[in-house]
């Protein structure tokens, strides 16, 4: 295809392919995955492109091993990634926890489909949004992007890698079948791709503590073969990385896993606000549902209705403060999601009863009609 890692140019590309190109542009050189619809084009593209850019592709025996290999690849020193869909995402949960606990940078793209179980393998869904937040056992902070176009699949996969490196953790790209399979113009421009360089140890092996955090609560990483002889364990561990199974260490470690995301929210959270200034009713949406919501927004504005949109670019961490603030002055918030009510609960929680919150559900397998969203908006106006 190209021996260039960043294929500067303009392309007609689907979202899955753009995700793969974004990963490669961000420096991904190890991909391990297992075939599943509708992410297969990511793996296929990676199998083609990894050898071209000096990386390694492996098709593993399942998703459990795919994510385990990605964690190993990351400790081996490569920017690493896997891609999957709902059933595979479920299988990855245990090792996502290992990645969080061991603070292993990597990216997991979930091209969601109708769920639960095998559900609707070839059709859109947004049913894994809470799983991305709470799927593995225990407490940890989460960063998840929800792209809304092939271009954003490229842009936000780059960003996901950067945030994974910056905060030393697995980061999710929570797309869906529609975004994955939609074909649109994608512009790749090497001069616009920014890469966050991994923080390496600043002291020698004798002094280095692999889990001693910097001021922003993020530790530094020594990869395999660099002479630091680091011990990495999923057991609760001290700053040296050694198991220490007591309440104090648990508090320090797990507290920091949550805090390194929570206390850096200003840097991480991204939302897009459209027509919010004079809005009396808001739409809060993300991913593919946002594109339908935009249709409803335009129609509402054409009819002179004061409607605004908050689009969650990062779904996690949730922009609680901004939603709370806006809840004080709007009559209501409409939340269209391609599930039967997930992020709507977060919106409701954030609004603290100040604004009426209405879900516009969709079970998956298709998209809302803009009029469904419009009806809800008019109910609240």
């Amino acid at each position: 295809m190209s021996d260039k890692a960043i294929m500067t140019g303009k392309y007609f590309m689907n979202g899955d392919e753009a995700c793969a190109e974004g990963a490669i542009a961000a420096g991904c050189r190890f991909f391990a995955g297992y075939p599943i619809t509708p992410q297969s084009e990511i793996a296929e593209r990676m199998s083609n492109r990894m050898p071209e850019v000096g990386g390694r592709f492996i098709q593993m025996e399942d998703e459990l091993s795919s994510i385990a290999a990605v964690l190993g690849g990351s400790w081996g020193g490569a920017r690493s990634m896997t891609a999957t869909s709902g059933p595979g995402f479920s299988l990855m949960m245990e090792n996502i926890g290992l990645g969080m606990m061991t603070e292993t940078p990597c990216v997991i793209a979930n091209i969601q489909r109708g769920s639960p179980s095998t559900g609707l393998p070839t059709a859109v869904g947004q049913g894994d949004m809470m799983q991305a937040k709470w799927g593995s056992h225990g407490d940890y902070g989460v960063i998840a992007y929800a792209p809304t176009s092939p271009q954003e699949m490229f842009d936000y996969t780059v960003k996901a890698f950067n945030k994974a490196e910056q905060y030393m953790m697995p980061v999710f790209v929570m797309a869906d079948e529609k975004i994955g399979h939609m074909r649109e113009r994608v512009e790749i421009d090497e001069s616009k791709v920014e890469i966050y360089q991994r923080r390496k140890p600043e002291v020698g092996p004798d002094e280095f503590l692999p889990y001693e955090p910097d001021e922003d609560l993020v530790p530094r990483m020594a990869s395999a073969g660099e002479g630091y002889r680091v011990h990495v364990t999923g057991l609760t561990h001290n700053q040296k990385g050694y198991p220490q199974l007591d309440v104090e260490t648990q508090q320090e470690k797990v507290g920091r896993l949550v805090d390194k995301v929570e206390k850096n929210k200003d840097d991480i959270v991204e939302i897009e606000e459209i027509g919010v200034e004079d809005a009396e009713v808001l739409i809060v949406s993300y991913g593919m549902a946002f594109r339908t919501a935009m249709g409803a927004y335009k129609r509402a504005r054409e009819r002179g209705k004061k409607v605004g949109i908050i689009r969650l670019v990062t779904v996690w961490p949730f922009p609680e403060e901004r939603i709370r603030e806006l809840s004080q002055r709007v009559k209501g918030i409409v939340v269209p999601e391609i599930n039967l009510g997930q992020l709507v609960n977060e919106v409701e929680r954030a609004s603290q009863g100040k604004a009426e919150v209405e879900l516009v559900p969709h079970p998956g397998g298709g998209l809302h009609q803009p009029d469904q969203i419009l009806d809800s908006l008019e109910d609240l106006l």
Partner: protein
Amino acid sequence: MTTELKKKKESTGPELTAASHPATKYLREERLPHIWCSGCGLGSAVTSLTNAYDELEIPIDDIGVVSGIGCAGRAAGYFETDSYHTTHGRAIPFATGLKLANPEMSVTVFSGDGDLFAIGGNHFIHAARRNLDMTVICVNNYNFGMTGGQFGPTTPQGATATTAPYGNYENPFNLPELAASAGAIYVARWTSVHARRIEAAMEDALAKEGFSFVEILSPCPTGYGRRNDLGEGLDELKSYQERAKIKHGSDPGKAEIKRDPESEIIVGKFVDKERPTFCEVADSYLD
């Protein structure tokens, strides 16, 4: 110290201290003593591996030790190398990523029978099939020791375990046969009583390019032995000494282990062959 005693001590050579022990440079001294029970074979298996590294002069910074979960899973934590204590069953896929991302590393997976062959069995056969360049060491104690002595995929039929109070009614895996048929290029089995043989087998396995497998049959007086009238750890070692028959190159299909304490246990080197590794084959298609 009396002059007589002093003389005796001098005559036996220099005093062996932690600092002078050949294994020390491979171990995280501050983490010792280890957690394993008296009579367990894990400690000696670790020593054999450090000796093998030493003998082959593999630079310590090039060694990666990966373990899963369980008693043997704790081994990685004692190696002063890059060491990874991963999730239950996933040591091999983690090691796969480590090796593929960093081919300069010499990657050893050190884990137990439950971890590698119950929850992780699928990964074992696929890694062997791919001929990934790594060495897998399985310390087989016939049960899930860490969780209190439940039966596992290698528990001999009829043996008693905490979840097999009437006797294990499942058929166990014969690990050399499984490894050989899945495609491992080196397969050996020894028992904890064969310290030097284990070390030599580990050296062979580490030196091979491809997927090599060493099974070590260990005593487990706490979890397995006492429920099966095998006595103390030392008694189990004695029993291994009596039961083990060295038969290099024998059919791994005939190496099953029976519960009968009089029955023969075939040990030795079953497979030693060459086959291109995963990376060699993958790269050969790129030209």
